[in-house]
């Protein structure tokens, strides 16, 4: 599975939706994922890719990690995975 598909699978599981319901421009709010759900998703992503996501729940907008929508999250993770190698 591609990074894209793996991230979508994690987000879909958190949102209790089918992966096909998670589109690139979906926001977390659209998907019904609250702040606790976001923190749990980031944990699952870190575990899946063995990366550290620079996200601070106190100041989500100030973090060096864009969570505007699903495509932004995927792009951020692809970058972190690339930097790891």
């Amino acid at each position, binding site marked *: 599975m591609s990074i894209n598909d793996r991230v979508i699978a994690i987000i879909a599981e958190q949102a209790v939706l089918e992966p096909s319901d998670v589109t690139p421009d979906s926001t977390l709010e659209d998907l019904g994922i609250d702040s*606790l*759900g976001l*923190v*749990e998703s*980031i*944990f699952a992503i*870190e575990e899946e890719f063995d990366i550290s996501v620079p996200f601070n729940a106190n100041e989500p907008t100030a973090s060096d990690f864009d969570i505007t929508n699903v495509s932004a999250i995927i792009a951020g993770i692809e970058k972190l995975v690339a930097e790891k190698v």
Partner: protein
Amino acid sequence: MKRVVITGAGTINSLGHSVPDTLEAMREGRCGISDLEFRDVDRLSIKIGGQVRGFEAEGRFNRQQMSLYDRFTQFTLTAAKEAIDQSGIVFSGETAARSGVVLGTAGGGVSTWDDNYRSVYEDGKNRVHPFVVPKLMNNAAASHVSMEHNLKGPSFTVSTACASSNHAMAQAFQMVRSGAAPAMVTGGSESMLCFGGVKAWEGLRVMSKDACRPFSANRNGMVQGEGAGVFVFEEYEHAHARGADILCEVVGFAMSSDAADIVMPSKQGASRAMAGALRDAQLNASDVGYINAHGTGTAANDKTECAAVADVFGPHADELMISSTKSMHGHLIGGTGAVELLACIMALRDGVVAPTIGYEEPDPECALDVVPNEAREAKVDVALSNAFAFGGLNAVLALKRV
């Protein structure tokens, strides 16, 4: 002062997953203590306990709930649902705004600590699930009960080791008696039966390797249990007005501190708590028909407790019955007083006194009627429930037949 009655009871413990199942086991003198089953149990020297069997959290709770509920919270929610369903009380409007939940636990989410310490120390992982803190905190169970049942009044958790539940129920009793709350959900829970939880207790060398035999001359220590007991304490007029079935009345309580030793019990501290509960309830010692003992099965507790009973009750000590149901369900630590309150309710309501099982040899230092091995039918008007904690913190409740 308002009268306080119990209108609902719920439990899960090694004897049963409900109040009827638990009371049936107590009537039959069944033992819920058996070989422990969990990871690394072979590295323990104590391998028995009153473990809850056949409890599947999956299916009962959804995925999100599972990630937030430690086993002690799962037990609490299960028992709270049974109690509130039985009571028939609906928490809405003013009743919801003023009613709360006070629960006891000594360890809170012990297996959550255990699992995650194992993960970072033994498995070398560097991150843990984000919900570790909200899952392990001691007030998690009380908070989830408040959310699940819309309890918006005073809610908190009491932690006084083996007296946690009794202290919690004493607080709930006070709130209803004073008129601060029309009803309170109260009791306690514990789930320490995991590798770290039992290993810690092993260190004290007060644990039995084979059985919990309170008051028996050959007793050789305590046995841990797990589970929860939860009750609805309700103001009498409030309960009466809605036609609720009243299980019994809570008529008094007292707390005392030994101010002496961190683990050794004190006859004076225990006596003052029992005598105080009688005074608070405006009862004579001779009114008491049954005492649910703290009765841990350790050499020190049982003889001290019997001496305290002899002091407080004088000649009547030989007339009353005193039993320790820990012989059946094990010591639920912070949840123990709550499960043991069920034996008091059974004595008052059903006229059946739960036995002290595993009783093999009389001990001259415990020369009371400990209801050995078989339950007994008897009319009981007043019962006391004792809890004497490590740290010398004692709490005794007095209950009355309605």
